[in-house]
């Protein structure tokens, strides 16, 4: 769990993915479209991937990918991201965390 919090703290926006996960591809695309450049951590490719996966599961993330953190706060899975995007909250969170600039 610590390693996950570390990663989240150090980056304005983080997305945890797996290389073969296409929903992760979608969420990355959405964040890029908004002008963000999230740090991407591929759990199946990263050297600390297994540890990170344990950490995410411990936080209750199911499915374990894709998971997004903005400004150190857990935003959630694809379902959460889409919901927050539709009502405009996602953009505000990204601006507040200085992950994007207008």
């Amino acid at each position, binding site marked *: 769990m610590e390693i996950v919090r570390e990663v989240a703290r150090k980056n304005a926006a983080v997305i945890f993915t797996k290389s073969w996960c*296409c929903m992760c591809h979608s969420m990355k695309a959405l964040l890029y479209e908004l002008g963000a450049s999230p740090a991407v951590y591929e759990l199946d490719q990263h050297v600390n991937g297994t540890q990170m996966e344990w950490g995410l599961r411990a936080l209750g993330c199911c499915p374990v990918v894709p998971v997004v953190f903005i400004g150190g706060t857990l935003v959630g899975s694809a*379902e959460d991201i889409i919901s927050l995007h*539709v009502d405009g909250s996602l953009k505000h969170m990204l601006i507040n965390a200085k992950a994007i600039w207008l």
Partner: protein
Amino acid sequence: MCSQPVELQPNLFSTSSGQHENWGESNMAESSSRMDTSTDLDPDDKNHKFDAQSAGVGVSDSSDKSKEKTSTLRRLAQNREAARKSRLRKKAYVQQLENSRLKLTQLEQELQRARQQGVFISNSGDQSHVRSANGELAFDAEYARWTEEQNKLINELRTAVNSHASDPELRTLVDNVTAHFNDVFRLKTNASKADVFHILSGMWKTPAERCFMWLGGFRPSELLKLLANQLEPLTEQQLTGIYNLRESSQQAEDALSQGMDALQQSLAETLANGTSGPEGSSGNVANYMGQMAMAMGKLGTLDGFLRQADNLREQTLQQMHRVLTTRQSARGLLLIHDYFSRLRALSSLWLARPRE
């Protein structure tokens, strides 16, 4: 020497105690101890023959012979009786069989009708095939029911709008329609867990709807474009709100579409990765199975995309209500419904058009 016509009988009347047992439930005990007669022979002919024989026989020794004659006659009578009863039982049994056959035909027809209406009835045969076919039918039937209910709710809303009902009243009706919309998203989620291709392919929609659908349903941004034009007058704030919502929806739609494209590409790569080794080698088989396993895993993520597409639809409708006034929301829902009604009607017209 006297012949014993009675003892000849077993040969002449070769029955059928086995046959006899099949003809009726309660008849076995009755007849097992008796010498039964077959129904093929005409009983009268038989008796005449035997009477003649016995008449021809019992002449000289009167007292003994008369006793024999009596017992012979008695046995003949018993045989006739047995034969008669046997014929009656056979007739009853055949009648029973005929009735059962009719009943069976009726039941088969009922079963067929029930299946067509989407009632799930398992078969003793191929379970999986029947189950999935019934699953599709079940969803189609549920969707038909949902559409009917939706029509009813929309008509209530229309009446209220036309009669200039109060805002609270309208609000309730708008909430009812919205909640009902969410019901169909739930239905689709459940159905896609069982059969994602049925939902994705849109076979439960009319052809025109199917042609223009996106990820198993309507494209939210297009619906908003439709509404923005028809819902005037809108305030500046509302116009901005609708515009932003349309943009957000468009972005999310693009993102999900890109994910689907990536999935298709990934699947194609998996299936295309064949080896060029000799046919039937164990390496090839293992490779093939590995490929299929990977492809299966990828197909398993399809219903996630459907779920997020429906999620987007649900969220977009919800946000739309936040931007619009109650009356505008009501009109918006009516516009959406009418649009889809016309699209469905178009499908019917198209299908019924005269062809050269």
